[in-house]
């Protein structure tokens, strides 16, 4: 009788552990898929950053040489954002640098006589492009993916089922859009 009870208890424990593991796997996998679905939104927001950088360079080309330091830095940030091999952290770094470098380039250009004497380009440099840059920056920062990935990771770290999923089931935390 004792033997049968022991087996039954062991069987019950196995079932409970199995269902916990299966539940953790299913729950965290589904959630990870949902986080990944929002990535396309971030990509299209990043595209607005790429476009803004191209537009800044299109105007800058008329007033500063391509060897200009600020021009080169913006071109470099643009490459970082566009490179397919870049990780999300590298893209986030390029995105942050773009805000700083493009603002610097536009400030430098605003001081130039060639820009001051050109009503159209002056409007682009002092008004249109800064607005485009700040809008695209805000859109990128507010992308749903950033919030979803951060929440997913924080919950995964703070729960037992998350610990199981991470350490036993190989479900990796979501890559966050954050500069290192």
């Amino acid at each position: 009788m004792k033997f049968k009870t022991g087996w039954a208890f062991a069987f019950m424990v196995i079932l409970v552990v199995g269902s916990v593991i299966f539940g953790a796997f299913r729950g965290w996998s589904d959630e990870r898929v949902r986080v990944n679905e929002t990535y396309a939104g971030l990509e299209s927001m990043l595209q607005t950053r790429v476009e803004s950088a191209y537009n800044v360079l299109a105007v800058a080309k008329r007033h500063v040489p391509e060897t200009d330091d600020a021009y080169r830095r913006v071109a470099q940030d643009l490459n970082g954002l566009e490179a397919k091999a870049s990780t999300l952290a590298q893209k986030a770094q390029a995105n942050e640098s773009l805000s700083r470098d493009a603002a610097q380039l536009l400030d430098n250009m605003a001081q130039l006589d060639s820009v001051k004497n050109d009503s159209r380009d002056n409007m682009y440099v002092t008004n249109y492009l800064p607005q485009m840059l700040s809008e695209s920056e805000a859109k990128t920062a507010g992308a749903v993916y950033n919030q979803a990935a951060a929440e997913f990771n924080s919950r995964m770290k703070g729960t037992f089922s998350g610990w199981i999923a991470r350490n036993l089931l190989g479900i990796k935390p979501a890559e966050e859009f954050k500069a290192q």
Partner: protein
Amino acid sequence: MLVRKILALALALALCLGTLSLAQAETEYPPRPQGTVADLAGVLGEKTITDMEALSQRLEDETKGHIYVLTRHFLGGMNVQAYADKVFEVWELTGQDALLLMVIGEESYALSLGGKAKAGMPAESQTSLLATHFRSAFLSRQYDEALSDLAVNLGQAMAKAQGAALNASGLFGQAAIQSTPQPQSVSDYWYGMFARDDYDAREDDDEAFWRTWQDEWEYEETRINWRSLIIWALVIYFLFFRRKKSRRRR
């Protein structure tokens, strides 16, 4: 049960991606305008837009084709011709239509034609048309003038390719902007090339000057003809007759 969930997830994902790509296309390519001009950069005058609509309507009456115009400040790194061709496709324009894209901040432009219009106007003709009737005014930021000049000439070329004629009178201050006549003969072509500097250097609206200038030119042309006749006569004489004479002497 699991299969059903996977299918549901796949369906949700497909719908989500579909919605995203549609939203992206709407952001990237503006909707087709009610008329024929989508001046998103706000660089065209009202009169130009009205005349453009009227010209396009006349072209439609003659050929069923339209000339559409899109202006934008920037394309965010996209190739201008590829963008124009894509807009042509997104707007579902027909084979007889033409689309002119003006990108103000990038100082670039492109012309996209439907299949039938393209057949009557090969790539070289399009390039030549843009170079002659658009480029210069566009680069000097006279957008209304650039569009007017090109639209009239493009419309007439499109109509001509289909055996029709486009009357542009009364549009775009047509007294000032006439389509450039094709050279009638080789001498007209040379005249156009060499007389240009002289023409540009003087006042072109002075009728008296024109009359004097034309008289001078006709006189000059006659004199040139006589002179060339004499020269040719002397050349022939020295080449043939003089040699014959010397042979006879021997």
